[in-house]
């Protein structure tokens, strides 16, 4: 076989391998983000399952917080029906931040109800809630890590060309809202 033909074949093979490995890497990163989204859903479901229990207990004592309790219930219903996906993740993040903020307010307001503060069921529910929050925080960190890798690949040349050809887009990070930056620690209220 002609040497120049061999050279062309070798160059084409190398280019194909490079393209293929970039493609594989992009798909792996995209799937990693999906896996991370699934992880967030699992952890958030735990929170959604727990919120009604907390609200039921709170309802008995917190007569002046009806508005807040109703808001949380509505937000929870909306969020629970929304599955994390590349299209819905922004909405999910927004809803989740709102729930976090409202739940934070509820925990702060518990301070004003000594009877509720000393209720054993409430104490246990709040401790479980805090633990679930830790799992959610871990799932968010995993999501952000996966998104960081994907976004780098999507935005940096040459993988950006393949990403645009495959219509792979950047994903939004899970960022805490300003109100949620001051994390409320339930354990502080039940010393």
């Amino acid at each position: 076989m002609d040497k120049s033909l061999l050279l062309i074949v070798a160059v084409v093979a190398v280019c194909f391998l490079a393209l293929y490995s970039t493609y594989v890497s992009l798909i792996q990163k995209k799937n990693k983000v999906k896996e991370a989204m699934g992880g967030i859903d699992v952890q958030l479901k735990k929170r959604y399952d727990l919120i009604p229990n907390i609200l039921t207990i709170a309802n008995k004592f917190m007569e002046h917080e009806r508005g807040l309790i109703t808001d949380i219930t509505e937000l929870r219903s909306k969020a629970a029906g929304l599955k994390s996906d590349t299209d819905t993740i922004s909405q999910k993040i927004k809803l989740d931040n709102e729930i976090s903020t409202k739940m934070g307010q509820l925990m702060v307001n518990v301070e004003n109800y000594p009877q509720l503060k000393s209720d054993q069921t409430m104490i246990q529910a709040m401790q479980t809630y805090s633990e679930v929050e830790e799992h959610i925080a871990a799932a968010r960190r995993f999501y952000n890590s996966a998104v960081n890798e994907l976004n780098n690949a999507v935005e940096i040349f040459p993988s950006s060309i393949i990403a645009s050809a495959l219509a792979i887009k950047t994903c939004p990070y899970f960022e805490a809202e300003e109100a949620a930056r001051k994390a409320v620690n339930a354990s502080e209220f039940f010393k």
Partner: protein
Amino acid sequence: MTIPSIGGNTSGNDKFKPISSSVNKPDEVNNIVNNSIQTPVQEQAEAPDPAPAVAPAASSASGNVSQNAEESILELYKNFESILRKAVLPELEQYEPKRKTILFYLRAVPIGVFLLSLLSILVFFVYPNAILFSIPVIALPFLIFAYKISLKIHEKKFKKKYMPVLMKAMPNFNWLELSAISIPEIRSTRIFENPTLSRNSRYRSDDGRIYYNRPISLLSFAKSFTPLNDVFDDCFKGTYRGVDIAISEYAEKCWVGREVKTSGTQRSHSFHSDKKNMSWQEVNIFKGVVIRFSMNKKFEGYTVLRPKGYSSAPSCADLKHYNMEEVVLEDVDFNKNFSVYSTDQIEARYLLTTSFMDRLRTISLSFGSKNRAYCSFYDDYFYLAIETNKDLFKLFSLDKPMNDLEQYKNLLTEITSILQLVDLFKLDKKLGL
């Protein structure tokens, strides 16, 4: 809060007092690391009394640890000193003349035989047929071996008698003759490298062919039944502030074989290679202390942290065999110092919170550049292994006076440093870590 000083030592003063400094102040940590890698301890030599010596330090501590934790340690120091002075030292002082006599004979015999050996060698050159004169030369290694065994036996005998007495200073904490953590348990944590599973292990040659690894050392196994046991040494088990703790001085070993090449022939390589052409050598993968803490957090998978960033850093290739994935965390400095692998990415982040990473890095710094930290989270326990490469908890050595307070102070410092890790990592707290 106290910086741990595992592998370090105290010096100077006859008083027993807790060591103290603020862990939250990076400058102080840096000073400690820079000034004294092996002794990250701030002694308060001018303090007249142990009790007031620690009180100001406790009050100035940055709030990482509650006053209760400082008080527990202070009480422990007081109890230990009281027991030592009342129940242990008076008896040991009576034994002191006997110790000196034993030590004299134990040293005199090998030295005498050594001199005799030198004489024998000279005689051998003059009278090559005088075989009898070679006996001292043959006997010398055995006598040195016997000397080493005697030191160990002496240490063990006195530890067996007096450690339970000394440990009364620490309620719910015991010294054990047998290991507090078994070898299978340590292996199951995956905390140390398994060279047989890693192709790029530091125990193999660059081409991965010349070295072979055997996971079980028959010599170590045989030694474990003798006073020369160097797999496990001192072990402790108990509870501190509601956290179950087990401490084992431990050495992880493996056999490394180098093929002795025969000229002109290409040999086939396999794990079961012909042992005739292999030269085997036992090497330490790890030598230090393994500590097991019970955790308030529940988890199901494995999360392993191994040190990295230095030439002889352990490989993590074996962890991939267990389907563990690398976990890239947000803390860039932490990632430079540790390789993190886990079976569950979310669980790893649940365990390794940002504050936990910060504490682990600070503690790792305080151990110094030679004392590496390994961690594993497995079966609701947190395992921490610190590579000290020295004998810890050394006490009742035959070649030291029995009333030498330095050895007791070192023991206490080493134990309390480990106990204080509970406070540093906040392992007694239900939430956060």
